[in-house]
């Protein structure tokens, strides 16, 4: 359940930004979670709702956008879309893949009032 630690980070990041902008309330948080990020998006969402209690984010809506996994295949020298770690290159079936995208866990933006 490291999602709760991550959720606490989300709340801290959003609260800091909201205070800095002299906002009283955060009503929505948009997160980007890559396909290869070390997190389960549904659990993260649930944990964010828990961690938001008694903060400026109480009752806020948490939206998670999934970003696709990408890799560079050294066998066929192509950028490829990769669904999961451990899957072969969809073009050549090789496994010599370097992940180039889909690892991020970011707070994209927040709606404040």
């Amino acid at each position, binding site marked *: *359940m*490291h999602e709760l*630690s*991550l959720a606490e*980070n*989300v709340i*801290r*990041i*959003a609260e800091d*930004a*909201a205070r*800095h*902008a002299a*906002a009283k309330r955060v*009503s*929505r948080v948009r*997160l980007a979670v890559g396909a*290869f990020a*070390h*997190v389960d998006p549904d659990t993260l969402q649930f944990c964010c709702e828990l961690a938001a209690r008694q903060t400026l984010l109480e009752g806020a809506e948490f939206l998670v956008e999934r970003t696709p996994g990408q890799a560079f295949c*050294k066998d066929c020298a192509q950028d490829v879309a990769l669904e*999961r*770690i*451990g899957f*072969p290159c969809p073009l050549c079936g090789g*496994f*010599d*893949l*370097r*992940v180039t995208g889909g690892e*991020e*866990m*970011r*707070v*994209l*933006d*927040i*709606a*404040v*009032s």
Partner: protein
Amino acid sequence: MCTTCGCGHGETTINGIAPVRKRHASGPLGAYRRLEQGAAHAAEAAPLGAAHAPEVDPERTIRLEHDILASNDALAEANRRQLAQQGIFALNLVSSPGSGKTTLLVETIQRWARQTPVAVVEGDQQTANDAERIRATGAPAVQINTGKGCHLDAHMVAGALATLRAENALQDNSLLLIENVGNLVCPAAFDLGEAHKVAILSVTEGEDKPLKYPDMFRAADLLILSKIDLLPYLDFDVDAAIRMARQVRPGLEVIRLSTRSGEGFDDWLAWLAAGCAKAQRG
């Protein structure tokens, strides 16, 4: 009421029924939405245009693009810098519970025979049993108890390093071994400031663990296959395990090791010595 001009739709009905409105407008109707670049201040108001937006909170969007792990990663970098300044080679040992991490550490300290000083940080939810096992070898050890926590983070390790320093136990040009909480999932996400994560997979586990828990094996720079003295009694397919590990982490180095028979220790100690030499050169 629209805060631009005072118009309002509060009393409007259609066939006697008030139309349902979304609480927050979005898109071009979100007339009060402002987009702020960067941290927050000096917000640039978007042109208000002519659109009325009654019953919309004066809500605005602040763009952050902030990495969720940024605070951990910054602390991890600070740990890494401090360790580098002292020429310390630091490893983060990760595995399931019961793979033999602590036994590996105890045997390693004994066989290392003070080539460099060694210090250990132990992570467990509860008890100081592991730190006591390490201290029995003569090496200094700090026990982190995470309580309900499932992983070590950079902040905990910074505290452990401060404790070791206060005891004068974090010496220059030494080896630092951090044993993470036994868990093949959560510790993968948290950088502690180590030079490498070392994953340990015992042959009493399934050989497909690297595919079942790819995040951890992908984060590792070395895989130790432990308890290989038990292979004659098991159906564990070593080649398949290594193949699957390299499926998630191309080129992953593998050492087959037994603390009972001592097999593989020459390779492991040589790997440690090479890492220490590199850390000392800076």
